[in-house]
């Protein structure tokens, strides 16, 4: 009968924050490269983001 928050320690919380930031960075990097690829493939008005 313990909520996940009750047993979560500082180390686990910190690791979650790091992973979230890393994921965000990877996504932004992917979006940027995909944007350039779409520019090469389509007209600017048809560009979509990943």
């Amino acid at each position, binding site marked *: *009968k*313990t*909520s*996940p*928050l*009750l*047993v*979560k320690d*500082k180390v686990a*919380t*910190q690791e979650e*924050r*790091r992973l979230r*930031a*890393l994921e*965000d*960075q990877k996504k*932004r*990097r*992917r979006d*940027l*490269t*995909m944007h*350039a*690829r*779409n520019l*090469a*493939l389509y007209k600017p008005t048809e560009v979509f983001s*990943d």
Partner: protein
Amino acid sequence: ISAIELPVGQWTDLMKHLLENITTTDKDSLKISTLITIGFVCEAIPSDILAAQSGAILTAVVSGARKEEPNQEVRKAAINALYNALEFIRENFEREGERNYIMQVVCEATQSSDVNVQVSAFECLVRIMQIYYDKMRFYMEKALFGLTVLGMKHEDERVALQAVEFWSTVCDEELELMTEAVEAQESGEQPDRLSHNFAKAALPEILPVLLWLLTKQDEDADEDDWNVSMAAGTCLSLLAQCVEDAVVAPVIPFVENHIRHNDWRFREAAVMAFGSILEGPEHKLLANLVNQALPVLIEMMRDPSPQVKDTTAWTLGRVSELLIECIKPDVHLNPLITALVFGLKDSPRIVSNCCWALMSLSDQYGGKETPASTYPLSPYFEGIVTALLETTERPTNESNARTSSYECISILVQGAALDSYPTIQKLTITIIDRLDSTIQAQNQIIGTDERMAHSELQSNLCSVLTSIIRKLRSEVVPFADRIMTTLLSLFSTATKHSTTLEDGFLAVGAITTAVEGDFVRYLEAFAPFLYAALSNHEEYQLCSIAVGLIGDICRALQEQSLPYCDTFMNVLLQNLQSPVLNRNVKPAILSCFGDIALAISGRFEVYLEVVMMVLAQASTMRASEGTSYDMIDYVIALREGILEAYVGIVQGLKTGEKAELLLRYIEQIFNFLNMTWNDHEKTEMIIRSMIGLIGDLAEAFQSGQLQQWFQSEFVSQVLKEGRNNRSLPNGTREVSRWAREMVKRASHIKH
């Protein structure tokens, strides 16, 4: 000592002397010490080392555990030794005759007149079930079933606890087997092991006992205690996951009969039973019951008993997390949120449970990528945030209540709809004010505990701030100066080793995305802290975040980052060579090269030679056969980093019209792609990046310079994988479509 010496062939007569002790001495104390030693030795050394003596060891141990042994202390020591030796005697246990004898001795020991022997015997049965589940069918039918049901009713709690643990172990094993069966079915294979469905068969016998045990709470139990009602709750929850729908019908009458009982123990047990069965059974079977129970549970958040309120808050958390579809926004949400907000004023445990429930509601109703104009929590958003902010003002973090409240605010912000933005903007000011206060209070901190609490508080505040910035994006711009001023003071006061720096850096990373090129205004002031973190090799997590931040800054500043790139590149290259820096930072450095190349395009020319050399060097890293999982993960991360670097460099130089500089490295790149493709350790991310890189190269060299490379067998295979593998996510298929088109264009050149 034996754990060190026996594996290297020393102290070969140790076991001979120990076994002599058992057979020749009349001194019980010597027997007990010897049995304890034998148990520890068996546990500590690989079983093949004493394989030749395992029969003699087993005989000595089991003879001490028999019912004929008059001294119960000796018997208990022998059973404990057997417990420790259970893995060691695997070969003996495989033989039916020996197994029968061992099981008989352990089962008889559960009936000893000495309760300590009984406890040890039940502990042994738990371990046997864990290790030898597959062999237990016969013994379950003949003895274990009856013994353990009786054991659960034992008046001595230590025995009852082990008997309940036995059934929790059965459920654990059968849940594992269920997972294995699903995985086997998915891959069209037969599972290696089969479930005997002991839990389902035993349900009518063990369920009433578990429900009865739920009412045996210890009124004064604190967080670290473990008692029979807690064990029964855990077992019931595992049982529900294991037997699924079958648990519901027999539990509901217990809940209905006791939920309004005068005695708090029965009310608490009823709520506990209800909360425990929410995971496992089909949702449609539970939906109606949850619907009926919700108003009662909401009301019980005002129960006079703290234990009842605690369990009710936990159950509401379970409902919010597992059965959100049962919460009807127009019927339940108002009273539910009122009850949860009311709970935020209660004891720290209840606060944590209420935060968990509120976070689950936010997660499930909240918008993910693009925020909706409104959502079901919008009418309550400001009220919840205000109540949580009050909770965070508590002076201590008992039961994680303060951290839970901050985490809950972060999650609420992440899920918020557009109509809650004004509240989030007000929250921004509150959080910055609080962060400022903690910085001002920095000098008044005395003692390690206070320092740690202070650092955790600053981390929590930074984390909320990061969530706010990520959510508001460009709307955070009016606050950017204040945020950066506060963060810079935070960095100048934080100690080198505190995690506050990490969380502050994450907030800066979020700011770069929000303000983009305007970040240049802060870079001069921020750079010294960034360089210090990059050189702080002992704190590799901080260093890793700092490396990521360089990428963030380059993405935000684009060519404006050029004046800083020499320093960035020097520090990154130094870090790659550092023997002290944790290797896990290195893949991020490689990715960062790609970020820099993308930002400064053709100006990356000056770094090209050295970076290509580094990438070639990193490409030689392989995980050999039988290597550790850690090493395999590292090599995968390294290859992901190399690919991200190549993608950034190819795209950057192409944009800067300097792609021809790459021609002397083409063989290096394709050799790396070929090697990576032929390694079976490939992630989806690696496949996607490989396809993308092939496309980038094709786009950069449209005049047929790479035609022979595009015709190679592995390139066709990579592109085919992207086209035909239906399990790849949409993003990869999209990259694949694009790459095929580019390769087609680069391969059909009109000369």
